[in-house]
């Protein structure tokens, strides 16, 4: 296992974790752009653009793109979040150069008006699909209330109105600003011939023009609050709670992961034993999400509406108790055992490692091996977890509750 980096003259970086023993190769272009880089007028454009990238280039039609990926037997896709848009493919090692050539070509899309109009219908269908699946939409409302005017308050999908009003010129302007080679990293993992990767990248990406485009990273100033949204077609009641947490560059993010595992892992956590095991909630979990210069703890709960008020009380009680009394050594050890196993198992396949290697580079410009992560988790003490609880109390959340209930009392 060897980590290698290179940089083209136009600023495009290439990073790879090369493993000669792997059976496959995973490759991805990580673009530093997402919902946080949008304005109200173009809300949803990053995600729409991600779809349009597969619609063809000056030398390939949309059908050519899909056909060529399938001819290589590639397992490929893309996703957009608040901070990144990622295009990736897992292939057999012999297809490394042709996969890089194809993905690189996609990074210079035609954005034809006809394709834009057809794909807009698909995006609007995607929005309608989620709208039929509660609690969709409420997580975005909660995010907006939590982050206030901060760029991270923006919705990734946008709304039917904002996507409906978008035109192809607006998308082109956004593309010119954001898809500069200085804003893109080519990431590889698995069996990689690094010099071949760099040569192919130079041929395909070396002529991309550089645009200087910054990204404001203001600190977040979250607002606590309690909101109920009535959706009478929903069967279950859903609650989403956001609280501040360590950012992507904070050293205490590992202690935050441990805390989230002890209090709110899907199984064997305090939320699990008090809400899920007794059948009071279908699901209840706590996770830590990290962003550039911002971070949050997110609690998610779904349950029979009858138990919603009681469950919110129990969640608040669990968080208060954890701050007052801390977690136990046995809980810390159990969380470490779980996380260690997840890290090792999640890293066995190159496509699992790709996202880890890529995220470390785009968020922190650092390489972390599996061993580095295991060591960081192993080093966490009860004191570290207590410090995170003091610094980021889970007891002052922004809460949104959605479901058939018209009102529900705040547990706080």
């Amino acid at each position: 296992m060897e980590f290698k980096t290179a940089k083209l003259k136009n600023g495009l970086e290439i990073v790879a974790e090369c493993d000669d023993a792997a059976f496959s190769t995973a490759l991805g272009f990580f673009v530093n752009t997402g919902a946080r880089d949008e304005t109200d007028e173009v809300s949803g454009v990053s995600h729409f653009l991600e779809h349009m990238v597969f619609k063809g280039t000056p030398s390939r039609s949309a059908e050519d793109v899909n056909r060529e990926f399938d001819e290589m037997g590639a397992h490929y896709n893309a996703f957009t979040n608040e901070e990144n848009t990622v295009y990736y493919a897992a292939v057999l090692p012999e297809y490394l150069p042709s996969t890089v050539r194809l993905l690189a070509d996609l990074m210079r899309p035609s954005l034809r008006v006809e394709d834009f109009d057809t794909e807009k219908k698909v995006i609007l269908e995607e929005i309608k699909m989620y709208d039929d699946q509660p609690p969709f939409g409420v997580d975005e409302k909660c995010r907006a209330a939590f982050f206030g005017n901060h760029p991270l308050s923006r919705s990734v999908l946008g709304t039917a109105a904002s996507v409906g009003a978008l035109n192809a010129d607006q998308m082109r302007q956004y593309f010119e600003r954001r898809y500069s080679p200085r804003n893109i990293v080519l990431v590889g993992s698995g069996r990689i011939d690094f010099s071949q990767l760099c040569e192919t990248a130079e041929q395909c990406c070396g002529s991309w023009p550089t645009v200087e485009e910054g990204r404001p990273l203001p600190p977040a100033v979250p607002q606590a609050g309690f909101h109920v949204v009535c959706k009478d077609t929903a069967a279950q009641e859903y609650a989403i709670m956001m609280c501040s947490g360590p950012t992507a560059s904070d050293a205490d993010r590992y202690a935050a992961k441990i805390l989230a595992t002890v209090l709110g892992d899907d199984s064997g956590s305090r939320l699990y034993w008090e809400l899920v095991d007794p059948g009071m909630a279908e699901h209840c979990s706590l996770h830590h999400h990290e962003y550039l210069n911002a971070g949050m703890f997110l609690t998610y709960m779904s349950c029979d509406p009858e138990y919603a008020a009681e469950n919110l009380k129990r969640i608040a009680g669990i968080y208060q108790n954890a701050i007052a009394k801390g977690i136990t050594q046995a809980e810390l050890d159990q969380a470490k055992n779980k996380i260690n196993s997840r890290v090792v198992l999640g890293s066995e396949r190159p496509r699992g490692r790709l996202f880890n290697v890529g995220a470390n580079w785009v968020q922190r410009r650092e390489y972390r091996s599996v061993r580095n992560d295991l060591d960081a988790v192993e080093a966490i003490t009860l004191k570290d977890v207590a410090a995170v609880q003091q610094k980021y109390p889970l007891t002052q959340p922004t809460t949104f509750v959605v479901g058939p209930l018209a009102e529900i009392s705040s547990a706080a």
Partner: protein
Amino acid sequence: MPQPILSHEFENGLVLLGEPMESVESAAFSILVPAGSVYESADRSGLATVTCEMTQRGCGKRDSRQFITDLENLGVQRGESVASAHMSFGGATLAKNLPATLRIYADLLRRPHLPDDQLDAARLAALQELRSIEDDPSHKVMLELKRRYYPDPWGRPSEGDVAAVEAITIEEIRGHFQRLFRPNGTIIGVAGQIDWAAAKDLVGELLADWKPISADEAADGERGVRTEHLAHQSNQTQIGIAYHSVPYRHPDYFRASGAVGVLSGGMSARLFTEVREKRGLCYTVFASHHTQRDRACVLCYAGTSSERAQETLDVTLGELRRISQGILPEELARLKARVKSGLIMQGESSSSRSGAIARDWYHLGHARTLAELGKLVDDLTVSAINEYLEENPPNDFTVVTLGPAPLEVPVAA
């Protein structure tokens, strides 16, 4: 590369399969117990699911909490599910922890407490799961499609129904366990960084003295209606279509599933191209081959806004019919490339392999190596698939829709 698959059948009928994989640090296991939802009576639909939940609420010397705590300290990422034929328990962990993990699961298989005082909680969990299906219309339409396509009880959703789950008693749960948890018919697959001889000795120590029980196989009952609309307040209409196919163990299986791969495997496949790419009719559309041991079908799904649902149904049915005119050589070439790279990537995952070898044994009475599977895919030809399609054109469709208004289903469907 992967080695041959090892197998051992104990005298009581229990089958252990192993696939050593040098390239991974993990070991995974998959246990199939012949105690699925087809063994329930019609008025106790959901009994297998609640029994499955109850087996995890204490076994051997461990209570419910100790069971989960011990598995988590062993780093086991576990999962369980109930299908028509089987209840499945599986997981993966660091290879050194596999023996201790199997010891715990042997207690679950043979000595679950099935405690009376946990029944309400297990029942509530099952009821919550049933409610959540109502909030996931795409999931719901496919459950309702299978329910109508297969003869009862083979299409019955394992989640059950509210009235039945509310009525289940602890005696019925214990009865389901005593009647059906047995070595004969149980299959255990282990894969990854395993020591086969040690695994065989351990499973022998834990399970070789487990007494076999005979159980009656479920008989085929009635099939549901072929076309039905279910009213649902939503933006989109969900469309589910099912038609005949052959099961995994049938000699024509690879020809039949190859044709499905041309319809829906990769983004250049026909349904994605015609329904989404060219017309922008929907976000999700797919067809997949669904197999049981003795029956199978092709399941298709599309979800789209109600005003375009009729066109989506018409275009989708049109593509299903058109495939009987034959596939093209380039379509088969793409399918082979995709399947073969998928097989090689399966070789990087102990969980994929432990599950696959256990399922293979159930369907075939032997397990196929990745190399054998690759050969079967290599041997597919355009003429063989087209011959199959000519003799077995997609027709006689079962169509279930869920949404604000019914659609016109062509009579010829």
